[in-house]
């Protein structure tokens, strides 16, 4: 990134906190890894506190955990069906990880690890490969019928099959790029607007300040929606693999 050290792109720079080098591979503990640790620890402590004293009438923390579970569980059940509930732990973990990553990144001076394509591409490729393996292990070669829905007339199939194959292989790209671009654009927008506050005199600075306030609220909404959309699309891809259209 060819930005100056405190430009809007400065927040996305990766810094090595504990440099590590094993066999030529740079596996340093970076600020990205630090915030991933924060996200995992926050999720862990939330559910540890919530389920420590389980009661019939839920306490406040327990009802938070139950709401989360019901939300994701309902999403999986609606979109994949009863058989998909086996994959609920994975979808739930994925949702919480991305949600915490997005929301923690909104704090001032925090690092958003979902604003790096590497992280998102890893998650998306994992889902893509897992879905393909699940599809082939459940349906065998019959899984190829995903590319040509039954009842397609032959002339249409010539156009439809390439499109379906392309849309299948573009899935990990669009899944990871969506989250990446949303987070990147949102954070750059916030920093650019915040820059206006400092450069303007106090009286006029109120206008961009109000804008930053509104955009921050919008960004919190986007952070939650994007985590939801990522989990929802994973559910839909899983549904394709399990139920074949």
């Amino acid at each position, binding site marked *: 990134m060819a930005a100056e050290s405190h430009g809007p792109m400065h927040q996305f720079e990766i810094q090595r906190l504990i440099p590590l080098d094993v066999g030529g591979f740079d596996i340093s503990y970076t600020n990205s890894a630090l915030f991933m640790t924060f996200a995992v620890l926050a999720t862990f402590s939330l559910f540890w506190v919530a389920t420590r004293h389980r009661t019939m009438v839920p306490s406040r923390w327990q009802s938070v955990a139950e709401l989360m579970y019901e939300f994701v569980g309902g999403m999986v059940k609606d979109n994949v069906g009863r058989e998909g509930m086996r994959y609920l732990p994975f979808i739930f973990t994925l949702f919480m990880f991305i949600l915490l990553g997005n929301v923690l990144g909104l704090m001032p001076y925090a690092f958003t690890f979902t604003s790096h394509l590497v992280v998102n591409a890893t998650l998306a490729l994992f889902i893509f490969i897992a879905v393909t393996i699940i599809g082939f292990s459940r349906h065998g070669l019959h899984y190829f019928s995903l590319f040509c829905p039954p009842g397609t007339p032959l002339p249409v199939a010539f156009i439809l099959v390439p499109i379906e194959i392309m849309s299948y292989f573009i899935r990990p790209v*669009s899944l990871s790029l969506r989250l990446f*671009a949303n987070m*990147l654009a949102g954070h750059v927008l916030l920093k650019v607007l915040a820059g206006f506050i400092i450069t303007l005199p106090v009286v006029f600075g109120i206008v961009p300040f109000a804008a930053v306030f509104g955009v921050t609220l919008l960004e919190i909404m986007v952070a939650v929606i994007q985590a939801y*959309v990522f989990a*929802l*699309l994973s559910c839909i891809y899983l549904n394709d693999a399990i139920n074949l259209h």
Partner: protein
Amino acid sequence: METEAAKMIGAGLAAIGVIGGGVGVGTIWANYMTAVARNPSMEDKLRTPAFLGFALSEATSLFALVIALIILFT
């Protein structure tokens, strides 16, 4: 100097693609509102497809944005 200017112009032109995403997302939410106003009992059932359509159409405009950023910063 000219390459810098050309980069800026190119990034600006690439960002025009975001218009399509804006129109698409607007259409989806407008139709969701209309549908819920006509038949409020369908609200919960329509929410998931609405979010799905929002995400899919927003992604296309974000591709344009990513192209603009790539032009600008490489």
